[in-house]
C-alpha cells in the first residue's frame, strides 16, 4: 500500500518537468543560438546553426567590444536611464507626499488627472512632442528624451509612492512636527528613508523602461553621437546586414546589462510590475 501511494506522486511531476523543459527550450534556444552564433564564422552559421562552433571565432565579440560606438551607446543609455529615474522619482515623491498626507480642495481631482495619464498611449503624443522638442531646440539633446520619459513615468510612480506614503502611520508625522520638523524636513529625513523599498521598486521600473525605450529616441536622436543602445542595434543590423554572426555578437553583448540588472533587481521588478497590475 505504502509503495502504491508513493509511486503516483513521483511519476506525476515528470510530465510537469517535461512541459517546463519544453517551454524553457522555447525561451532559451534563441538566446543560446545568438551566443554560440557570435563565435561562428558566417559560412558555418547556415550549415551548423545549433552545434558548438568548429573553431571559436572571438573576433566578432572583440571587435564590438573594441568599437567606440558600442561603448558610447552604452554610456548614452545609462546616462539617460539614470537621469530619467532620478527626475521621475524626485518629482513623483514630492507630489506623492502631498497627495498622501495633505487634505485640500481639489486634491482627488488633481490626482485623477495624473492617474488618467496611465491611459494615454505614448504613441498618440509622439508627433506633437517631436514638434515641441524641435521648437525648444531639444532634438539631439538627451534632455528631450529624459524630460519626456519622466513626464510619462510620473503617473505610475506617483500612484505607487502615494500608496506607500499613506501606509506610514500619522503618529510618526505628529511626533516629527512636535519635535520641530518642517514639512520638507519630515519628507526628506523620515518619510523617504522609510519608503526605501517603494523607491527601489519605482526606480527599477523607470530604469528598465528608459533602457528599452525605442520610439522616443528614434524620433529625437538623428546624430549618431547621441544614440542609445536600441538605436545602435537597429543601425548595426542595417549596416552589417549580411554579417549575421557579427550582429549576433552585438545582440548578446547588448543583452548583458539588461539581464545582469534583472538578476540583481528581479524581486523589485517583478514585485513592482505585479503590484501595479494586481493591486493597482
Amino acid at each position, binding site marked *: 500500500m505504502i509503495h502504491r501511494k508513493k509511486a503516483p506522486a513521483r511519476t506525476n511531476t515528470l510530465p510537469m518537468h517535461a512541459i517546463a523543459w519544453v517551454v524553457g527550450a522555447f525561451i532559451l534556444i534563441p538566446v543560446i543560438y545568438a551566443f554560440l552564433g557570435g563565435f561562428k564564422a558566417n559560412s558555418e552559421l547556415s550549415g551548423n546553426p545549433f552545434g558548438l562552433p568548429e573553431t571559436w571565432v572571438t573576433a566578432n565579440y572583440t571587435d564590438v567590444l573594441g568599437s567606440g560606438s558600442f561603448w558610447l551607446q552604452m554610456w548614452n543609455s545609462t546616462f539617460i536611464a539614470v537621469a530619467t529615474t532620478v527626475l521621475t522619482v524626485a518629482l513623483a515623491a514630492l507630489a506623492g507626499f502631498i497627495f498622501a498626507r495633505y487634505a485640500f480642495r481639489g486634491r482627488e481631482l488633481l490626482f485623477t488627472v495624473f492617474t488618467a495619464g496611465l491611459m494615454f498611449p505614448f504613441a498618440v503624443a509622439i*508627433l506633437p512632442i517631436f514638434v515641441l522638442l524641435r521648437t525648444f531646440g531639444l532634438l539631439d539633446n538627451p534632455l528631450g528624451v529624459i524630460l519626456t520619459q519622466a513626464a510619462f513615468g510620473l503617473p505610475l510612480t506617483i500612484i505607487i509612492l502615494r500608496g506607500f506614503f499613506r501606509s506610514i502611520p500619522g503618529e510618526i508625522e505628529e511626533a516629527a512636527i512636535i519635535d520641530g520638523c518642517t514639512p520638507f524636513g519630515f519628507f526628506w529625513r523620515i518619510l523617504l528613508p522609510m519608503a526605501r523599498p517603494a523607491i527601489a521598486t519605482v526606480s527599477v521600473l523607470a530604469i528598465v523602461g528608459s533602457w*528599452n525605450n525605442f520610439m522616443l529616441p528614434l524620433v529625437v536622436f538623428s546624430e549618431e553621437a547621441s544614440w542609445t543602445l536600441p538605436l545602435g542595434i537597429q543601425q548595426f543590423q542595417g549596416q552589417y546586414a549580411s554579417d549575421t554572426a557579427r550582429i549576433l555578437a552585438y545582440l548578446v553583448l547588448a543583452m548583458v546589462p539588461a539581464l545582469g540588472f534583472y538578476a540583481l533587481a528581479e524581486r523589485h521588478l517583478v514585485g513592482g510590475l505585479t503590484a501595479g497590475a494586481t493591486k493597482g
Partner: protein
Amino acid sequence: MTILTRGPEAVKLPVPAPAVKKRGRWLTITLFLLPAFVLFLLLVVAPILVAGYSSAFRWNGFGGLPTNFIGFDNFTRLFGTEIFAQDLWHLLVLVLFSVCVQLPFSLAIAMLLNQRIRGRALYRVVFFAPYVLSEVITGVLFSLILSPGTGMANRLLSVFGIESEWLADPNTVMPSLFLVMTWKYFGFHMMIYLAGRQNIPNELIEAAQIDGASTWKTFRHITLPLLGPTIRISIFLSVIYTIQLFDLVWILTGGGPSHSSETMAVTMMEYGFKRSQVGYASAISVVMFVLSLVFALIYQRFVMRRDLEGATTNIGGRR
C-alpha cells in the same frame, strides 16, 4: 486599475493642520506639486490635445501651429483607405490570438509553476527574462532566426518538411509576429497570474480537495473564478498594449510585406515622419487614443465592475 479606486480613499483624510499654519501649508502644497504638474501638463496633456487639434488640419508639421483647416477630411480619408482597414484587422487578430492562446498558455504555465516541483524558482526567472530584453533586441534576434536563407527556424523545421519565408510571406507574417510577442510577453502574464494565485488562500483549495474534487474541478470551480480579477486585468493590459503596438513590428517587418503586418502606430509613424503628413498622422493617433479610451471605459464599466466593488471595499477596510 488605479483610476477606478479613488472615491473611498478620500474618506480618511489626514488631520487638518491648525489654522495659523494655513498659508505655509498652501505654499508647501504648491511648491511640492508644481514641478510634477508642469512637466505632466507640458509633455503629456498638451501633446495629446495638440494631436487632437492638428488632426483637423492639412499640415506638414512646420511653421508654428497648423493653419490649413480641413475639418474631418483627414478622418474620412483615413477611414476610406485599405491600410487602415488592415490595421484594424491586424489589431483584432492579435487581440484574439493573445486572449485565446497567449493568456491561457500563460495561465497554464503559472498553474504548473505554482506546484511544488523542483527548480520552479529557476523556471520562473527564466520564463520572465525575455520581458526585460528590449523590443529591439528581441526583434533583431528573431528577424535573424526567421530569415529565410540563413535563419535557424527553417533549418530546425525542415526536419518536419516545413519551410517558409516567415516574415517575408504575407500568409505567415502575422503568426510569426504573434510567436515573437508570445516569446517576449507570456512570462509577464505568467507572473501576474502567479501573484494573483498567491492571494488565494490555500485553505479554500485544500478544502475542495478534501471534499473529493478532482484537480480539474478544483481549478475550474475554485481557482479560476477567484483568479477572475487578475485575468480581466491581464486581458485589459494586453489589449491596450496591442492598440499601440509599434517597436516589434517596426523592427521585424516595418509593417510589410505590402502592409500585411502593419499596425496603426506604424502607419502613423510612416505618414508623420517619412511623408511629413503630420495632420493626417495625427488623425491616426486620435483614432488610437479614442480606441483605447472607449475600450477602457466600456471594459471597466461592464467587465471589471465587480472587481472594482471588491477592490474599493477592501481598501476601505484596510485603511
